[in-house]
């Protein structure tokens, strides 16, 4: 049995123990969806970090920096900075006014059924993009690592899928939170060791490190080139590159503050103050980790080299390959085991976020008008939908190969969150005149804009433009109609505009009348959901 597998199995054994423990103390909807609201600030900070730092961060962003230098580092900056928006605008009001989902906040003063139905749709879309990214990451890892161990891609993906269902179905949010806490610790420790090893490789001389990173040689279309990876412009090139970068900024600045699986974590703490403190904990962890991604990424470019990365597992494998180069097979195994754990923890968080939205927003509140027909129905439906989500994800992952950079894939999900979820969430909390029509318009226009512009953009329509020699012939072979791969600069303003226009055209006195209650609740915590006593 390989070492990577051993590390991974140790993690699995630990987390299954946590799940068993959590399952025994988890009773009722508040326990299942919100861990009884008794998670402390540092615990939730670690859990949020563990929830947010996905395969997209560890595998995707390090890979982007290793292959495209400084431009990839802008993904790190964006991923961190987004938490300022959450800290200042979202975390506390969300905790004070909601129960289990984003939909709760909107349903407070708007007509609940249409609003919840659309929020559930945009939540599930966001999570699906993220889920695909995690599964592709898992697949890439397996292809590289477990090639010799006799475990195939299919077996590994199915295994990951089954584990995530076990965590979520049996352990609920409490187990998920602890799985994420353990994973965040492992991931940060791993990144720290890798960073120190990179500096050690350059004898702790910064000038040597940056010197090497500024002269990375690799083959481009068969010609050996030398590039400065500390300089910008390797990914985002003129004419559209600069605008694409600003567009990426939109996705990050507002997207994370609309990510359903991250936001539900703020329901697991006792009150708004703890939610606030937990964001700061998360910012310390996530910030430190992302600063280190630049060392790991540039280190991988300088030490491993883009040529080697591309021929040994591709863009997502830069981090593990760096570990192999610096610490040998044992360290590769440990880092890969941690990367697996990372994926597992994020996938569990995504699953519980999606199942909460489906069960609480869609099943109980949209279909059954907010009435549980039997005691415990919401949790039962959530468990069944977690199973279904697991099955769907496994099938999608089996159909997909480890082709795309998972960091890029995740930004698609974030684009939906930034353009559909964030505008309606923010306006609902801060704008008196916001109405149901506005929410419907904002959610649907935001969602459609992202999907539409992505579809006619370079990553879908333009993936196989005429004149390019491609190994696979895609359905559409045309120049993209929309030149940017990041749609945020168009879709975020469109989402806001639609939400504003809808509210102005379809004003709703009933919703305005309840705004005072929402404001008082969101700032004081009066009437907020309480932590359970046992």
């Amino acid at each position: 049995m390989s070492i990577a597998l051993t590390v991974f199995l140790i993690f699995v054994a630990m987390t299954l123990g946590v799940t068993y423990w959590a399952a025994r103390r988890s009773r009722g909807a508040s326990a299942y969806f919100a861990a009884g609201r008794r998670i402390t600030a540092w615990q939730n900070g670690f859990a949020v970090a563990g929830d947010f730092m996905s395969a997209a961060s560890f595998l995707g962003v390090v890979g982007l920096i290793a292959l495209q230098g400084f431009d990839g580092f802008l993904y790190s900056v964006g991923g961190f900075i987004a938490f300022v928006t959450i800290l200042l605008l979202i975390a506390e009001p969300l905790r004070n006014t909601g129960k289990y989902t984003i939909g709760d906040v909107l349903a407070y003063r708007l007509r609940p059924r249409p609003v919840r139905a659309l929020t559930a749709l945009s939540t599930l879309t966001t999570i699906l993009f993220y889920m695909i990214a995690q599964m592709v990451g898992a697949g890439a890892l397996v292809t590289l690592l477990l090639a010799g161990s006799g475990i195939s891609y299919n077996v590994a993906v199915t295994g990951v899928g089954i584990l995530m269902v076990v965590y979520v179905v049996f352990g609920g949010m409490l187990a998920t939170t602890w799985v994420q806490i353990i994973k965040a610790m492992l991931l940060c420790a791993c990144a720290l060791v890798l960073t120190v090893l990179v500096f050690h490789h350059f004898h702790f001389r910064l000038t040597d490190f940056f010197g090497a990173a500024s002269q990375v040689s690799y083959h481009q279309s068969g010609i050996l080139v030398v590039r400065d990876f500390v300089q910008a412009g390797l990914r985002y090139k003129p004419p559209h590159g600069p605008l694409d970068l600003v567009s990426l900024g939109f996705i990050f600045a507002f997207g994370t503050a609309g990510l359903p699986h991250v936001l539900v974590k703020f329901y697991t703490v006792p009150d708004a103050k703890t939610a606030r403190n937990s964001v700061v904990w998360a910012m310390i962890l996530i910030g430190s980790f992302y600063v280190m991604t630049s060392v790991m990424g540039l280190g991988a470019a300088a030490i491993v080299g883009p040529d080697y990365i591309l021929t040994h597992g591709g863009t997502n494998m830069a981090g593990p390959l760096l570990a192999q180069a610096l610490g040998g097979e044992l360290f590769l195994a440990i880092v890969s085991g941690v990367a697996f754990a990372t994926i597992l923890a994020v996938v569990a968080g995504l699953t519980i976020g999606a199942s909460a939205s489906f069960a609480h927003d869609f099943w109980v509140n949209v279909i059954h008008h907010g009435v549980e027909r039997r005691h415990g129905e919401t949790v039962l439906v959530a468990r069944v939908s977690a199973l279904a989500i697991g099955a769907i994800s496994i099938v999608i992952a089996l159909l997909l190969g480890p082709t795309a950079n998972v960091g890029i894939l995740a930004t698609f999900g974030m684009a939906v969150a930034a353009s559909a979820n964030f505008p309606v969430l923010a306006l609902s909390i801060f704008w008196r005149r916001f109405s149901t029509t506005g929410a419907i318009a904002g959610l649907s226009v935001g969602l459609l804009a992202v999907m539409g512009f992505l579809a006619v953009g370079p990553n879908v329509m333009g993936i196989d433009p005429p004149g390019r020699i491609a190994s696979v012939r895609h359905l559409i072979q045309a120049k993209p109609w929309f030149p940017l791969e990041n749609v945020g600069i168009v879709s975020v303003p469109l989402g806001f505009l639609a939400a504003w226009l809808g509210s102005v055209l379809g004003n709703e006195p009933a919703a305005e009348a309840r705004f005072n209650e929402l404001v008082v609740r969101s700032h004081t915590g009066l009437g907020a959901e309480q932590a359970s006593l046992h």
Partner: protein
Amino acid sequence: MNNKLTLNPEEWDRIAASRQFQDLLAVKRLFIVPALVFFLLYYFLLPILVGYAPKLMGTRVFSTVTVGYLFALSQFLVGWLIAGLYMRASAKFDRLTRDILDEEQLRQGGR
């Protein structure tokens, strides 16, 4: 502190209009609005300058480290700084909030 108060619509309106609550909002706004505006400007300056002023951002400061790289790193410091300042400011928010809650509890007859 009892948060399970049951209030009718008039009472929510009364609290919302109260001087104490308006003070709380004003104090919060005084911190959050400038912090948010500064943060958004500072953050968006990074992709804008990297994209549209590549010469400036590519200037080496020491060794091969560029202005752009240091600017990107400074985003982390600014993020942490805003978080630290917000934590400090929030002590006052919490105090004002507690006053409002205490008064509501008295009004409800200390239920």
